[in-house]
């Protein structure tokens, strides 16, 4: 499990890396000045800003304040905000019941959502979203211990949404990019 500090460091480090790419590529690939100025300017701000955040407490006085001072001028985070957040904290306190408990698998709901969504997108790319969307929905709802009847019902609803998009936007969701390229 990634802790709070670590995941923030990773986020900022990712921003720093992407910022560096936007800063350096225009030089490497010789972009025209008109094309290079804005991304380099913004890339520079991202790189400097991310570096300051990563350095954090090690910075001298005013710079350290720039990084660590919360300057919310509309501070509504008084007792009312805390009360409102309390119910959310209670909800966050424990994980949902999933099939993982029965299979003895240790996977968080967040990780499962990200992994299954990635698999859904990837398989949709391969064979077409029409076929995998209901499957994704049924699997997801079953994982969170919904009844088969509800899972199938929601699967049918998702299928209707796909047809709605195919009809309204004329998108061939029945076609894959690698398999089933001709559709049905």
């Amino acid at each position: 499990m990634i802790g709070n500090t670590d995941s923030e460091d990773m986020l900022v480090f990712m921003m720093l890396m992407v910022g560096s790419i936007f800063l350096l590529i225009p030089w490497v690939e010789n972009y025209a000045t008109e094309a290079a100025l804005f991304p380099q300017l913004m890339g520079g701000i991202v790189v400097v800003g991310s570096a300051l955040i990563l350095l954090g407490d090690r910075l001298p006085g005013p710079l350290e304040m720039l990084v660590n001072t919360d300057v919310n001028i509309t501070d509504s985070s008084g007792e009312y905000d805390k009360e409102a957040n309390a119910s959310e904290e209670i909800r966050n306190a424990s994980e949902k019941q999933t099939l993982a408990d029965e299979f003895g698998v240790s996977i968080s709901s967040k990780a499962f959502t990200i992994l299954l969504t990635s698999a859904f997108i990837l398989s949709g790319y391969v064979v077409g979203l029409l076929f995998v969307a209901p499957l994704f929905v049924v699997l997801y709802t079953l994982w969170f211990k919904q009844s088969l009847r509800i899972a199938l019902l929601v699967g049918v609803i998702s299928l209707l949404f796909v047809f709605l998009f195919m009809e309204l936007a004329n998108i061939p969701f029945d076609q894959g990019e690698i398999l089933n390229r001709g559709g049905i």
Partner: protein
Amino acid sequence: MALDAFFSGIELVFAWPTIGLVFFGVLLGIIIGSIPGVGAPIGMAMLLPLTVGMEPHNAIIFLIGIYSGGMYGGSIASILINAPGDAGNAATTLDGYPLTKAGRAKDALAISATASALMGFLGALVVIVLTPVLIPIVRSFGSPEYFLVAVLGIALITVVTKGAPIKGIVAGAFGFMISTVGLAIMTPTPRFTFDQMGLYDGIDFIAILIGLFAVAEMIKLSQQQQIAGSNVTVTGNIKTGVKSVIDHPVLTTKSGLLGLFIGMIPGAGATTSTFVSYAEAVRTYTDGKFGDGDLRGVIATESANNPTVSGSLVPTIAFGIPGSGSTAVLLGGLILHGLRPGPDMFASQLHVTYSFFIAIFIGNLLILAVGLLLITRFSLITQIDSSIIIPIVIVLSVLGAFTLNRNWFDVAAILAFGIMGYYMVRHNYSIIAFILGAVLGPIAEENLFRSLQLEDNWLIFVTRPLSLLLVILTLLVLLGPILKEYLHSAEEDGDEAMDQNLSEE
């Protein structure tokens, strides 16, 4: 001219299918807003791709309908199950949910419908009246000013959201940076495309919006315990609720005006306006039982939230600076449909601008009618389980992202930005600043270039009075609170040193 545009706006709204879209949007917004964990911005982001074939004004009016309805709908989940549909409805839980527990859910829901609708009317009316005043201000802005306004917008957002200002600046600059992927604006140079044809048109900002709002929120929701209410009993008295709003005209109007004017501050949406109104009510009525089911607590928050819709549209349409997540999506909608925020919206497109506010005005009628007539039915919506909502929202997000350009990079983008958005929110990096950068990036870049072409040096940003004012404002907004904090701590250190010296003596 403004009057002619106003009447043209009325004609636009009452034409078919526009009027139908106002009603459909508001109804859809109420339903989406009342689903726990799903709020107006998510609904708007998911449905934005489906508006592509619509007339621009119809698409925006439809989205505004969802926004307006969602603002009211969010309070239903807040009152009945203590789970706000949107952060803007969080303050309503404070007294709304205790009222439900006390068997007065109908009273609270009736207050919500009446106060939201009445103050929604007032908000739209005030903005319609104020529009002629705004016209000369907006038209005095040129390219340098519009570039600086985008920068000021990000600066303002950083200080009205949680976290250190540097986080907001980085988030905003990251958004600007991402917007530069694809063909350059001023020259046909492909930038950061890595020879992938799918990246030549850049990453669609709608995909970024869907990722940051819908997917990120679903990842967050997946971690939470079941928030739907399985056993909600809707009892109480509708008439008492309506009467309590009418019996508190000062509180209602004051909260409504607070909501309207706070909504006009870039970056400060309904979350801020409702909490400020609530705090003001607590301060004013010392005899209250706020937090334990005081009707005035619900009146204060519900009077503030709907006028915020009208208020937040002002900086969005005039300067392209969104006041909240919903207006950030709306800004995306404006740009998607070729309606560029700025002087045009107050000149050739003034009738369209008026039509938006008139649509809010009409939409509030529906909120009042639906809110009072169908109150007892809404508890059914709040019982939908989040593990059913999440896969449906993800499927709609993926379908919507692919529909934009039939480009799988957009689909991948919603997942990538969804994960990134989840961690940004968790660590107080403003996603509104990020979106503002991503949506306004091309306009800001174009204005930067036009400005530099005018004088060929950066001094243009400080030699024009209005530009100079914007630069000073940006610096004040960003550095003012830090300097204040620094001086305060220096003063404290000085005092401590003096105390130490005195004690040594």
